[in-house]
């Protein structure tokens, strides 16, 4: 099975976020970008399928600026067999449809039976790209999926947890699947594999090539206008008490007199 995993580098979780000088985006200066948790689960799913289906290959692909290289190397260290970086326009892009078009265009020359990705990106959580790539390629797509397994001679079975219960699905290939985070306890890359991944080749499709292939579709159709951080929250107030009754009494008084939620 040829498995393609679509990944996106996102700021590591301990990053202190700030707006870029033009106020339109997150300032990436000095920020470390890593493989998002959702994408880690997607890579893990790809590796589990590869281990289950002899002869399978895992190919990680990322669209974006040069920092994609680090996320792709992380995927190689985990066990991906190949990696391709699709370069974004030099001025950057916030348009998920442009990302989907660029990825779909690259997939015209990359073999795939199954496209995997996180159900949404770990940073903007838009959740558009995997479905849009599938639409452009004319293959079915499924979101919020867990536990993908081979089923029958050439199909897949998977689950989709919902509020009402767990749905069981089967599908034929090719298809695209967006995965839930952390349900499969993604493996940790071993030190020798990390060292090897530093030397692994990463194929690059540069932006002029992408732009040429996309023709009139190569300009972004949406642009981020403003990026600002949420207003800082005011401090919490701790209630000191001896008995639950005293705590309740103090809480009601604060709600009435200070928060003024009821008269």
């Amino acid at each position, binding site marked *: 099975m040829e498995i393609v995993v679509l990944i996106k580098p996102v700021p590591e979780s301990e990053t202190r976020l700030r707006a870029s000088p033009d106020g339109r985006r997150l300032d990436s200066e000095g920020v470390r970008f890593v493989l998002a948790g959702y994408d880690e689960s997607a890579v893990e799913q790809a590796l589990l399928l590869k281990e289950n289906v002899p002869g399978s290959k895992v190919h990680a692909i990322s669209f974006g600026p040069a920092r994609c290289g680090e996320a792709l190397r992380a995927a190689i260290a985990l066990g991906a067999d190949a990696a391709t970086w699709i370069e974004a326009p030099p001025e950057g892009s916030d348009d998920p449809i442009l990302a989907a078009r660029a990825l779909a265009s690259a997939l015209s020359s990359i073999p795939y039976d199954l496209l995997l990705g996180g159900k949404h990106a770990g940073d903007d959580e838009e959740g558009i790209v995997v479905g849009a790539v599938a639409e452009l390629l004319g293959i079915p797509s499924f979101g919020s999926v867990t536990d993908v397994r081979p089923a029958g001679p050439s199909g897949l079975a998977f689950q989709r947890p919902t509020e009402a219960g767990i749905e069981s699905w089967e599908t034929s290939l090719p298809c695209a699947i967006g995965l839930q985070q952390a349900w499969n306890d993604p493996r940790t890359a*071993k030190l020798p594999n990390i060292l090897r991944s530093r030397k692994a080749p990463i194929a690059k499709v540069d932006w002029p090539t992408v732009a040429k292939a996309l023709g009139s579709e190569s300009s972004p159709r949406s642009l981020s206008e403003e990026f600002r951080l949420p207003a800082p929250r005011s401090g919490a107030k701790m209630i000191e008490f001896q008995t639950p009754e005293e705590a309740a009494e103090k809480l009601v008084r604060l709600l009435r007199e200070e928060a003024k939620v009821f008269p």
Partner: protein
Amino acid sequence: MPEFSLTAEQESLRDLARKFARTEMAPKAAECDKSARFPEEIYRKAWELGLMNLNVPTEYGGSGLGALDQCLIVEELAYACGGMTTSIIANCLALEPILLGGSPAQKSRWLTPFCSEYHLASFCLTEPGGGSDAAGLKTRARKDSEEYVLSGEKCFITNGPHASLFTVFATLDPSLRSKGVAAFIVPGDAPGIVRGKDEDKMGHRASSTSTIRLEEVRVSRDQRLGGEHDGFSIAMRTLDQTRTPIGALATGIAQAALDLAARYSLERKTFGKPISEHQAIQIKLANMVQAVRAARLLTWHAAWTIDRGQPGTLESSIAKCYASDAALRVADEAIQIFGGYGYMRDYPVEKLMRDAKLTQIYEGSNEIQRIVTARELLRQYG
């Protein structure tokens, strides 16, 4: 110009160590400290991830890292637990004599099978009669045709109760002092190896330490590392390599103490405001961060010197000594900032002080480090 930024490769190694330290080690640090439990499951996992035999070249199944790379990893591990880190890096110390003194045949014979599975090794130099006076060691090696017979007692041996390989230093002729010392590889199941009880220690309680008694242990000639007079030099050159990671270990403990104290100072209120707003606390925090940063930079500099192929004796002595003194001081101040809570075993800071203390003692006491430092310094003027 000096360059203080890390390469992408070094950042990914540090990420691996940080993830392992925070998800596997930290959650069990307090429990293992309290019950003096040797968490073998954690050490096994460290080996699986390649975090154990850091200094062994990849051709023998190790991770083949340089000194700075090792230090980055060790600091991250020690941030979570100094004791576990001691047990994880003890193989680096125990195997270094084989790397320095072993023939290619000895390296393939002893290192390759050792590194291909989870195994622990112990470095056996210190004796009840003295550690720093390595030229005066009492363990005897007696020549018996093609074999040597080893007799004596080693103490404070890290991982001693669990090791499947020992590097042992013994004298063929005590009157020759340092020239009489030879180094040997001894398998853990050699007849005559008697392991003492697990010592009850002040800190590093997740690590295990014991005496190792050698009762007429027979080793063949091809288990001797280098020549009959090379043991002392192998031991000293080993410590030149492994002192610097102890600086990193101490830095990790100090950073943990600083982080805990700084966060606590923002939460804890006295006289109507967070204690971080009192200058008395600010001055403490400023002194602590100075010590942590200086410890890290001295450690990185020593590692950089060694990675450039120089012995780094002066640099590693300064780094180990300074960082370990800093760790104890910073942990002490962290407890002071926590006040009475800091003294309680339910809070994590008092463990840091107990763990920091050992870093002033092992791998060459800080008194010996100062002697080495002064000797190397004066050599430059003489």
